[in-house]
């Protein structure tokens, strides 16, 4: 079982990448995706490779693009795509959600239902076609109460129904901004089951980050030519 969590590290959050990784290791995660917003990108004072050795947790460099409109976001996508392993778009308005699910170069649409954001069958079909993962963000379920939490649950239910109907890919995250907000994978599964997800959905969503990182690393490596194309041995003369 390879579970990953998407975290906001210092200066986007309160804890450094190393502290996030250390706590994630305690909580039985296998990796963290450092999804800092594009206006507060992570400082890797310590080499990710060193963190991996020390705590046994994979550190994936990612960026969550936050922009006011699709044009600016598109600029950021071009800018950050070559620099990071996983690229997210900070969703939450109809136009940005639409932009994210229709871009080949975007990996994840983060919290599409937040703020004024909404999701529908058109976006779900596009997400499936362009292979953009939709995020089930559990942050408001874990860390708010009363009316806002009820709304968060309603939003998650709507999103889940649409995403499952069209078989769109998805990821799950508790979206922590410091090491105290991280919750273990079993806790997230328990929460998910309470609010209507299946156990497999949550597990799959946590694993998907890892699969995504592995795929993108392979694509970025020097040996990669095109999907499905491999350099083989030359045929030898008989």
């Amino acid at each position: 079982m390879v579970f990953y969590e998407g975290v906001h590290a210092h200066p986007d959050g309160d804890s450094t990448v190393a502290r996030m990784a250390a706590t994630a290791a305690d909580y039985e995660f296998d990796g963290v995706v450092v999804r800092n917003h594009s206006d507060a990108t992570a400082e890797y004072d310590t080499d990710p490779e060193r963190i991996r050795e020390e705590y046994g947790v994979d550190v994936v460099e990612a960026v969550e693009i936050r922009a006011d409109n699709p044009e600016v976001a598109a600029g950021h996508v071009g800018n950050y795509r070559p620099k990071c392993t996983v690229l997210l778009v900070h969703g939450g308005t109809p136009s940005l959600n639409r932009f994210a699910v229709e871009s080949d170069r975007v990996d994840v649409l983060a919290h599409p239902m937040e703020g004024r954001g909404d999701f529908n069958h058109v976006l779900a079909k596009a997400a499936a076609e362009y292979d953009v993962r939709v995020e089930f963000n559990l942050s408001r379920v874990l860390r708010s109460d009363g009316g806002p939490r009820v709304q968060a649950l309603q939003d998650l239910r709507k999103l889940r129904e649409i995403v499952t109907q069209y078989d769109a890919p998805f990821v799950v995250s508790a979206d922590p901004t410091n090491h105290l907000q991280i919750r273990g994978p079993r806790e997230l599964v328990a929460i998910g089951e309470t609010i209507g997800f299946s156990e497999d959905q949550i597990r799959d969503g946590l694993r998907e980050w890892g699969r995504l990182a592995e795929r993108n690393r392979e694509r970025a490596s020097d040996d990669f030519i095109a999907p499905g194309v491999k350099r083989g041995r030359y045929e030898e003369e008989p």
Partner: protein
Amino acid sequence: MKHLPKHLRPRWRYLAVHLETWPDADLDRRDFQRSVWFATQNLLGDAGSADADCKVLHFEFADGTGEAIVRARHGHADEARAALACVDEIRGDPVGLFVAGISGTVRACEEKYLRRDGQIPDERKVVFEDDQRSAVVRGNRYDVRTDGAFAGATELDFE
């Protein structure tokens, strides 16, 4: 009242919980119990929280880390776990929380999952964000005092 015959007594599961906060937090069992009740009621409703019947049996907390044993009814351990995960703050102090394991007896729970490592925290000067700051050090974890708040770091950040 006469106690129940054995086959009628409720069966329990015991959850071993590890807690973590910023170094300035001060918590006791009652604070934690109150937050647990609050979280179960908010997540599971009155009926669900009565079913899970979460009770804090054992609570130890000092210097930003702690351990607890929470009792829940057999068959409702998952609900209890979900509710515990929603404990986000205790009396205004943000907490990190992890269910280390679930056992059928208090003793097994203590022996298998609770480890009182008792590291005594230490104050040290570090350079963080190009500034001299003091940090509370516990093992390899550093909680750096920033202006009116804390930032989490580890020894790797100051090598």
